[in-house]
């Protein structure tokens, strides 16, 4: 349970004991008196017009207490950059997991039966599953009238293309023409899933006009505003509480069913609980990792200099925008990578299809594009006759270098991560002919955002930290008492946390974007500084000394150098007046020259980027295509590491998750856009036994625009270059490239058997 270290000290995370012993309560464990159970009726066609919905038989079933369709609700569309979806289908269903109606009944069985009894008459529409063919002139439209939807002005509405983004620097065509070598590659990644161990659950209970919703969400504040918007009630009337969260990996970002369950509870006049099955967790959520088709072209000089990069990316948005409208531009930045490239022209299309919507899953778009780009970089190295590590040594960004949009970098540790990873994996050693080492580099931005926190000291000298931060299991929130304790010279155990409750703290972005320590941590430290100031003022008055002469240690405010002149923090707090609050200054997003870029959605420069090199040592069974990863060396620049054990845990988990993305995890769609493997039997996660040896090191250097104490994000980066490093190792063994992700045994076998590369 000791899963944290700070300042060399190990601490026990506050939620550790209840999680390890099984005493902890997750949303599905909660029940309320009189509670009814929710069930959804899903679309019977992946794309169809709804002609008629008849709920008579469902309503007549004994035990049914509510049936809700979109007709019962405000006519409101929701979504991030494009507002294209209603809570229940209105007129048209666009993917297999679309919700046509919701039912609440006294038993789960009755709810399921009632959902079945709803009669829906459809007129099937042409199904569009190919997100590349979605751009053909004669492709059926997923949203025929979407130019009328509310949307961000940077979102291009063109046929099925929801966003079009470019990254443009200089004249890539001219630069390409004068390159010594030009290398072109094409890669394609399948869709995949976040697969949190806890399928989601929502419990909603109304009191008058106010609703409390317990939800397994990563983003309680986004859920709150989504409920308020779609049900047309004030945010103040919506309280979202997250019990323990059983993982998310991005799959639990965005508004997810809180509003539907609240609507059912209001109609039923009872608390209503929804608990997803594993199949629903695969099919009905609007948050999977996007498939991407990538074409790269790089022009390089003999000495390795990268003079031109052209790339064209097509991404699979699925049926709705959700929070994932930014994916196209993010992918475009990853098609550049942390390299010095003189001229760039990358274009990225984000397209609708009649498939499950995609959204942010751990470092959205980055692992797939990195997997393509870093293989492409190895192909460039081969063409140049350079070792792949040497090519990277010559081309990675460093202090003073210009990014893809001419963002100028301050101190940045990517080259050090390369050297450390290569050293840890012992890159130059001799290996048997069926083993090889591959190296890949990636990056990921930190996400500056507002946050706020309160710290109350109680009369006995204990304290409460109130934060909007969301704990997803990483321990980021659990480390907060330690940081506060360090600021205030108190024991971490003196503090309890009041968190993931929208009624308690002010807005927070939630557990997404590797930003909990970066933003929420900053706010909590600012609140601690406020408390510290108040304690110093009180003690200075009491001891009649200057504030500057005081220090906080061992639960005392004491005079530096004469520790017997002190006043205990408990005594000061006894007056009941010590309440700190803080937000801290949000670090700036660096400027760039984005004049030539279309579709600017916030990813055009990277604030406090996290840099990663991973090296993978693999063994390939050429006859079967089975790949085993023996070791991964991970070297990261995530700034100053505040909790080494927690940070290492993120890398360990991220590497193992990356292994799944690399080798086995892919959602397979049929010709109708239905998932063929929506269960853990055939959606193959990596098991503990498949985990390689993982060696980790941190390049800790000062960073411009960093988070608290010089930190950057930690959670998403480990996922970024893992599949890429494995791919480069596999290609070294085979002498051929596997051009589709995941690199399943069959695909590796096919690549190994094929002639040429």
């Amino acid at each position, binding site marked *: 349970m000791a899963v944290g270290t700070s300042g060399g000290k190990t601490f026990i995370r506050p939620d550790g004991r209840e999680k390890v012993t099984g005493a902890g309560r997750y949303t599905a464990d909660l029940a309320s008196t009189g509670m009814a159970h929710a069930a959804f009726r899903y679309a019977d066609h992946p794309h169809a017009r709804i002609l008629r919905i008849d709920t008579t038989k469902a309503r007549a079933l004994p035990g049914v207490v509510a049936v809700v369709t979109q007709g019962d609700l405000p006519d409101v569309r929701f979504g991030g950059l494009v507002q294209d979806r209603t809570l229940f289908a209105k007129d048209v269903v666009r993917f297999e997991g679309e919700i046509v109606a919701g039912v609440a009944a006294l038993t789960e*069985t009755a709810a399921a039966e009632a959902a079945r009894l709803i009669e829906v008459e459809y007129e099937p529409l042409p199904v569009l599953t190919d997100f590349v063919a979605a751009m053909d002139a004669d492709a059926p439209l997923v949203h025929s009238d979407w130019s009328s939807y509310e949307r961000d002005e940077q979102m291009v509405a063109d046929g099925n293309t929801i966003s079009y983004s470019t990254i443009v620097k200089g004249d890539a065509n001219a630069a390409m023409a004068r390159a010594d070598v030009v290398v072109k590659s094409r890669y394609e990644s399948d869709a995949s899933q976040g697969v949190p161990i806890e399928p989601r659950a929502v419990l909603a209970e109304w009191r008058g006009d106010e609703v409390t919703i317990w939800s397994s969400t990563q983003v309680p504040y986004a859920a709150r505003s989504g409920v308020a918007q779609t049900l047309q009630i004030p945010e103040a009337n919506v309280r979202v509480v997250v019990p323990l969260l059983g993982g998310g990996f991005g799959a639990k970002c965005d508004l997810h069913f809180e509003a539907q369950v609240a609507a059912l509870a209001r109609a039923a006049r009872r608390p209503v609980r929804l608990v997803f*099955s*594993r*199949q629903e967790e695969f099919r009905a959520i609007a948050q999977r990792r996007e498939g991407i088709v990538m074409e790269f072209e790089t022009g390089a000089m003999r000495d390795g200099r990268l003079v031109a990069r052209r790339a064209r990316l097509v991404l699979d948005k699925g049926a709705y925008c959700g929070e994932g409208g930014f994916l196209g531009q993010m992918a475009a930045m990853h098609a550049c990578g942390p390299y010095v490239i003189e001229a760039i022209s990358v274009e990225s299309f984000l397209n609708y299809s009649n498939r499950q919507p995609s959204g942010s899953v751990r470092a959205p778009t980055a692992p797939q594009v990195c997997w393509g780009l870093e293989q492409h970089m190895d192909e460039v190295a081969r063409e140049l006759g350079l070792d792949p590590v040497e090519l990277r040594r010559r081309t990675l960004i460093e202090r003073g270098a210009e990014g893809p949009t001419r963002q100028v970098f301050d101190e940045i540790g990517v080259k050090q991560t390369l050297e450390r990873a290569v050293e840890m994996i012992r890159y130059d050693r001799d290996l048997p002919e069926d*083993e090889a080492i591959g190296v890949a580099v990636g990056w990921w931005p930190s996400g500056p955002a507002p946050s706020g926190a309160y710290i109350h000291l109680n009369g006995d000298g204990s304290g409460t930290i109130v934060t909007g931060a969301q704990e997803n299991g990483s321990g980021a929130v659990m480390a907060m008492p330690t940081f506060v304790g360090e600021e205030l010279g108190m024991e971490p155990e003196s503090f309890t946390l009041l968190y993931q409750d929208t009624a308690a703290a002010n807005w927070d972005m939630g557990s997404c974007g590797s930003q909990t320590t970066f933003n929420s941590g900053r706010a909590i430290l600012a609140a601690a500084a406020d408390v510290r100031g108040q304690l110093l003022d009180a003690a200075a008055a009491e001891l009649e000394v200057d504030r500057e002469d005081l220090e906080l240690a061992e639960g005392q405010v004491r005079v530096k150098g004469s520790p017997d002149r002190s006043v205990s923090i408990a005594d000061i707090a006894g007056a009941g007046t010590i309440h700190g609050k803080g937000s801290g200054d949000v670090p700036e997003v660096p400027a760039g020259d984005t004049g030539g870029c279309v579709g600017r959605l916030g990813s055009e420069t990277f604030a406090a980027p996290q840099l990663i090199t991973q090296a993978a*040592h693999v*063994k390939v*069974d050429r*006859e*079967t295509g*089975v790949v*085993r990863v*023996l*070791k991964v060396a991970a070297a990261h620049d995530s700034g100053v590491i505040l909790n080494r054990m927690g940070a290492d845990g993120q890398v360990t988990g991220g590497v193992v998750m990356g292994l799944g993305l690399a*080798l*086995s995890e892919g959602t*397979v769609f049929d010709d109708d856009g239905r998932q*063929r*493997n929506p*269960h853990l*039997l*055939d959606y*193959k996660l*990596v*098991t*503990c*036994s*498949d985990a*390689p*040896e993982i060696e980790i090191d941190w390049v800790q250097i000062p960073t411009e625009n960093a988070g608290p104490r010089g930190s950057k994000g930690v959670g998403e980066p480990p996922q970024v270059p893992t599949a890429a490093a494995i791919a480069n190792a596999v290609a070294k063994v085979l002498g051929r490239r596997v051009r589709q992700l995941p690199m*399943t*045994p*069959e695909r590796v*076998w*096919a690549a190994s058997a094929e002639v040429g590369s």
Partner: protein
Amino acid sequence: MTRTFTTAATVEDAIEALGSGARPIAGGTDLVVGARQGKASLPEAIVAIDRIASLGGIVEGEDGLRLGALVTHEEIVANDVVRARFTALADASAIVGSHATRAHGTIGGNVMNASPAMDTGGPLLCFDASARIRSTWGEREVPLDQLWTGPGTTAVDPRELLVGIDVPAPIPATGSSYVRLEYRRQMEIAVVGVTAVVRLDGGSIADARVAITALAPTIRRVPDAEAVLIGSDGAADGIAAAARATAAGSSPIDDVRGSAAYRAAMAEVIAGRAISAALARARGEHVEIPASSSTYAGLGGARA
């Protein structure tokens, strides 16, 4: 809808419950997990047989093994006689699911679930095992080659209970193995599996059995592959020919787990490995249990 769940204390109780329409549940790792996944809904009446003491235990005699229906995969792997003389069966039980699956899943459930992808079937078939079946009208023996009639179906009446499996003792100088294609190191399901049993006489193969798993509607032997091996000296070209015959004798399907072309190619690769491992064991050489991970050097064993 009413569901009944009763627990039988004796075989007689169980048979009586079966007679009135109940389905037996042993470890539940097929029945319950299948229902959760929506394969088939849970039966309305269930009788738990897991507490019937007489259905447990492995008896090793001169004439062979008697496995109680409730013997778990974990018990099979731990049994020294199974490991030494019925090694292919140990290979199979050792790779069923995960530790938890092996601790709960029974041989009876494995056999009666009649999946063409289940792992112990190939070894049992090649060892000429038979199922002991009991009902209110008596006891009968069903050789395993007559037990499975199709995917998920058996020649056993729903009112009958499998009480045990008898495996005759092999003749000395016999080596056996079961090898499965494994994408992951745990929690796999057979996409391709091959059992090989060979008996050496002098330098040549006096008898051979080859069976395929997940490569046909039921687990079955491949006589053509066996014929290639019998009388040969066990050299590489003979093994390769038998492996080709194994692939030729299979009728693989196309699904999310693999294309028919890949499965056919893997049938040959895995057959070659299974036959080689069986031969090595017949010669007294050491091959790790499970053979799946050790037949490709280093893939499953210790990490680098």
